[in-house]
């Protein structure tokens, strides 16, 4: 029995926030559907010769609404971030993105076909007529092309071939594409031309989205950066290509970053300073200092590793929900692989737990790659945590969370039960490469850990 030595925080896993934001999002779709219904949508769908144009309207309205939701999902609105977590928001954004693109494509095809049929014009002539003559349609055509470009670049096969920074830069054209597509809705959409209320609603929604972007993607980060005045204090080489950056700053308690969270960092070195990197805090945040640890991949890694002391740092965040807020019980298992140790290292230090209630499993490809080991040992000794280091190459031929050596002797889930006492009652926090996390999660489930006790964040770049 664990005596009630400290109060566990109430699980804040954001169920309420998710319910409210999801309901609001659905409401916006219902409103545009109601607009369409109130104009006699279903009747016109069956009527002679107007079916195509009526269907075009519905697809256009829903596509536009989804574009709006997509923008909002990425606007970094703090309470939305807290409810969903950035990883899930990114996946929702992707899903909405592709759905709205196909709806938009359907809208274009249906309008052109419908108008062409009713005026007895050729399809291409009708398309040209629409783009050239109708108000706002040249803008809409340009917007459509920009959105098509962004979608094409986001298809996984294409995305892998483009450097992230370039992809991200081009992805910003989605904002422009969405904005250029807006006027034609207000100038040609019968709902908006005839109903001032509908028009006001649409303007409010889009104005709100633009304001949210301005405030939370630009204003707030600038204000935070100014308030905390973080600079590079020291860059410490940890192992092969892993570095820790120590960042002194002011009033960091007000930032309210929690262990397990990450921030987006912009180091104002010379060239390339505008590139932002999301890195986890690798120690519990202090009032006068933050630290992140990263693997220096690519030339931009070299730029960060070479940042001179005194370099100013711009921040966005803190983001992420892999924090103590997800915790449900007293016992905890932290599982890290490779550079995934960073948030686990912060949790090891910052979580509330009593002697022997917390176990950390740390996988790496070799003993040399067990970075931060000294400080992990020191914290474990002081707090009474158990640490299991598992260095060694992964088994050939199958994906496992284990080393090759252990994988010969144990099945994935058996190893867990052997290594970790009282496994099934623990909250498990996972961080590592996505295939490793998938293997670990599968092993945990087989070993009897309920899914609601397994906490991770999956970022899929």
């Amino acid at each position, binding site marked *: 029995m664990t005596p009630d030595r400290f109060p566990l925080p109430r699980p804040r896993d954001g169920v309420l926030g998710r319910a409210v934001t999801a309901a609001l999002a659905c409401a916006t779709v219902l409103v545009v559907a109601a607009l369409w219904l109130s104009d006699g949508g279903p009747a*016109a769908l069956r009527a002679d010769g107007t079916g195509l144009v009526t269907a075009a309207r519905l697809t256009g309205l829903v596509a536009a609404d989804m574009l709006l939701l997509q923008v909002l999902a990425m606007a970094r609105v703090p309470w939305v971030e807290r409810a969903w977590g950035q990883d899930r928001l990114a996946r929702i954004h992707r899903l909405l993105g592709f759905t709205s693109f196909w709806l938009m494509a359907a809208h274009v095809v249906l309008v052109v076909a419908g108008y062409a049929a009713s005026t007895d014009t050729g399809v291409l002539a009708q398309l040209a007529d629409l783009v050239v*003559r109708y108000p706002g349609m040249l803008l809409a055509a340009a917007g459509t092309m920009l959105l098509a470009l962004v979608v094409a670049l986001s298809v996984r096969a294409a995305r892998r071939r483009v450097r992230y920074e370039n992809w991200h830069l081009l992805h910003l054209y989605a904002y*422009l594409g969405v904005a*250029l597509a807006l006027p034609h809705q207000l100038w040609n959409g019968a*709902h908006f031309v*005839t109903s001032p209320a509908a028009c006001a609603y649409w303007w409010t929604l889009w104005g709100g989205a633009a304001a949210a972007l301005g405030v939370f993607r630009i204003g707030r980060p600038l204000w935070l950066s100014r308030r905390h005045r973080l600079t590079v204090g020291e860059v410490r080489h940890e192992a092969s290509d892993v570095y820790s950056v120590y960042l002194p700053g002011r009033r960091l308690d007000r930032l309210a970053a929690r262990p397990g969270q990450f921030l987006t960092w912009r180091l104002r070195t010379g060239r*390339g300073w*505008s590139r932002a990197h999301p890195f986890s805090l690798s120690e519990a945040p202090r009032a006068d200092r933050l630290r992140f640890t990263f693997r220096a991949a690519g030339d931009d890694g070299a730029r960060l590793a070479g940042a001179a002391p005194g370099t100013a740092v711009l921040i966005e965040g803190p983001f992420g929900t892999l924090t103590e807020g997800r915790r449900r019980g007293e016992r905890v298992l932290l599982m890290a692989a490779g550079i995934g140790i960073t948030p686990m290292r912060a949790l090891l230090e910052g979580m509330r737990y009593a002697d022997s209630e917390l176990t950390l499993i740390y996988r790496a490809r070799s003993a040399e790659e067990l970075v931060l080991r000294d400080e992990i040992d020191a914290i474990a000794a002081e707090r009474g945590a158990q640490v299991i280091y598992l260095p060694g190459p992964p088994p050939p031929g199958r994906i496992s969370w284990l080393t090759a050596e252990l994988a010969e002797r144990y099945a994935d889930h058996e190893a867990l039960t052997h290594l970790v006492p009282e496994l099934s009652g623990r909250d498990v926090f996972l961080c590592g490469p996505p295939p490793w996390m998938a293997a670990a999660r599968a092993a945990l489930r087989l070993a009897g850990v309920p899914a609601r006790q397994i906490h991770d964040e999956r970022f899929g770049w």
Partner: protein
Amino acid sequence: MRKITFFLLATIAGLVGLFSYRTSFGEAVPQARPAEAATPSPAPPPTLVAGGRTVDGDAIFTEYGTVQVRVTFAGERIADVAVLQKHTVHEHSLVLNELALPQLREQVLQAQSAEVDTVSGATATSRAYLDSLQSAIDRAHTR
């Protein structure tokens, strides 16, 4: 940063180009008239019918605007239908007016009633036109 500056300038140039086009501020480019109509075709002259009388139909409001017709009767016969108000809400309504209104007039004069087919693709325009026409016919008969 150099790359960003380049993209930014190119984007601004593109936007300036786009917004220098007249439709980009909400205007529509008027329809080009077919060649034979280059000489302003006189509005269908109100057919002068001896003893003819004109009756206005109801103004019919739809999501695309208002439609109202004026019917000229020669005795019991419908001698002509003129359009007083027509749909103006968006560009496509104007296209449909050009297409559907003359066609409807022809059909009505032939059938001598408002019970004719709607023009395909211009259902709302047709219905409004025929409703207004029907109200004029009703009014003419109750006088």
